[in-house]
């Protein structure tokens, strides 16, 4: 199956191939539409590369087993959709405080609870950042093509390894079930990051951090070092503490891992943002309809449309958006297009601070936003 370099793949399948290229050797989960093909392909492909696949009893078991595998040294992934993503939240927080690298894929579907199993949605955007309780670090990446599913899964694993954080791969049904051509770039041509191991430095202190760094060196669990893994705030050896100084420094360091390294984490795409009059902000599969609208608008000599698309959706690429706002003197209107009732728009409004009008184009009926609807919206507001 790996074989050919250029293949027609589903977005869900490309995630597995990207994961394997990045070094994923463990997958555990509980299948759920529209993410099931990720479990299916992992079951097929992991044994071929010496990895393990396990179907657990539920979604919580799915992420728990993957966390265990990761602590023992394997690159691990789990995948789900909204209902399962809700169940995994507790262990996402555990991954954050215990600093366990993991990639969690959420192929979003419409509505709360079990909602609409097979319909596209982007209603988990805020949940992906805030779903688990407490201040915590998280990186969220959202792809808009099958090729990006491949490339960005590699980046998701790299980020998880480098920063020892849970990385959420926030997909939607549009991209998950789409088949497109995909180049399976072999690992030797990719940048692959691995967690750092420096046993001499750490000694018995599994959570000791080197000067000037924010991430502890990794101590492979079960390889002879005695340390503890807990969801409680802990000392450098991993054992719980109530000390307010330790708590403060640990919590700050967890958050600083992301905030002080934003420039290495943020990623976005800009199309005609330097002189567009209307800028559409979108992410994931919605971008394809926006691009379709831009194609159609080129046929008429009408208003100039631009697109700003966060690929890393959290942390949101703030500096990039501020730069556009500062330099584009033609910009008269921002439209945030997303398959929800208004989530990314909140972040956009916060950053725009009223300097440009911001309107929303949302859809929550389980159908996709079309290029025509985007053009209609532009006519309505501009």
């Amino acid at each position, binding site marked *: 199956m790996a074989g050919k370099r250029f293949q027609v793949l589903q977005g869900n399948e490309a995630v597995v191939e990207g994961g394997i290229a990045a070094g994923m050797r463990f997958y555990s989960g509980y299948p759920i539409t529209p993410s099931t093909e990720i479990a299916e392909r992992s079951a097929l492909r992991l044994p071929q590369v010496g990895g393990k696949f396990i179907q657990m009893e539920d979604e919580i078991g799915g992420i728990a087993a993957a966390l265990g595998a990761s602590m023992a040294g394997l690159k691990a992934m789990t995948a789900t959709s909204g209902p399962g993503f809700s169940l995994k939240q507790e262990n996402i927080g555990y991954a954050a405080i215990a600093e366990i690298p993991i990639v969690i894929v959420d192929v979003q579907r419409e509505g709360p609870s079990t909602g609409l199993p097979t319909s596209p949605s982007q209603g988990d955007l805020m949940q992906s950042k805030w779903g688990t309780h407490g201040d915590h670090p998280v990186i969220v990446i959202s792809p808009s093509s099958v090729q990006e599913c491949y490339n960005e899964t590699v980046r998701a694993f790299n980020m998880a390894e480098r920063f020892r954080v849970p990385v959420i791969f926030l997909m939607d049904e549009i991209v998950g079930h789409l088949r*497109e051509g995909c180049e399976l770039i072999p690992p030797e041509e990719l940048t692959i990051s691995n967690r750092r191991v420096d046993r001499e430095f750490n000694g018995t202190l599994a959570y000791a951090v080197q000067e000037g760094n924010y991430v502890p060196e990794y101590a492979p669990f079960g390889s002879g070092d005695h340390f503890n893994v807990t969801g409680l705030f802990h000392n450098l050896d991993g054992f719980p503490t109530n000390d307010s100084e330790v708590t403060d420094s640990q919590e700050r360091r967890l958050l600083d891992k992301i905030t002080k390294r934003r420039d290495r984490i943020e990623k976005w795409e800009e199309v005609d943002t330097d002189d567009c009059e209307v800028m559409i902000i979108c992410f994931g599969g919605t971008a394809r309809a926006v691009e379709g609208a831009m194609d159609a608008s080129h046929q008429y000599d009408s208003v100039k449309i631009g697109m700003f698309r966060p690929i890393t959706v959290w942390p949101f690429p703030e500096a990039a958006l501020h730069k556009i706002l500062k330099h584009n003197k033609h910009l008269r209107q921002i439209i945030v297009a997303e398959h929800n009732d208004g989530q990314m728009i909140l972040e956009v409004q916060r950053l725009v601070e009223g300097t440009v009008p911001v309107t929303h184009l949302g859809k929550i009926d389980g159908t996709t936003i079309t290029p025509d609807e985007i053009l209609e919206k532009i006519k309505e507001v501009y």
Partner: protein
Amino acid sequence: MARTEVRMSGSGGQGVIMGTIILAEAAYEDGKQVAQCQSYGPEARGGSSKAETIISDNRIHYTKVKYPDLLLSLTQLSFDKYLPDVKDSTIIVVDSSIEVSEETKKAHKVYILPILDAAAEVIKNKMSANIISCGVVNEILHIADWDAIEHAVLNHVPKGTEESNLNALHYGAKMAREYSEN
């Protein structure tokens, strides 16, 4: 080729999804850009099922089909369901068991072909209707070189059925060619 959109429809189990995947793989192998989508869930179980492939020489931005350039239907139910979503230039291909109104015949280029009968009686494999359909579509639209499409068919059919499925592919092409000539 310019952006070309194909919609195949039928009842669940007739393999229209596989048909569009084969078309997509063949066109991709032939150097074109492709996007393939299908309906899932209740819509795909029983009743009518549809799948779509978009082919273009350029990058495909929007991946959904609104009004296809070719609509192929294997059942009356699916034909009636998807007929409203066509444009004037849409080519219509239907199995000969499907009733097509005179009005539709006047408005469109229509191919009425015994696809299901050919699968059962000529190829002796009912499951080959989708492969016959691929032959028909490729003969009409020239999506991919025949080598590429044969290769894509062989990637997907069960062992032991290779030859009959290649026959099905070329039988579909022949039916379309002969229909055009008459």
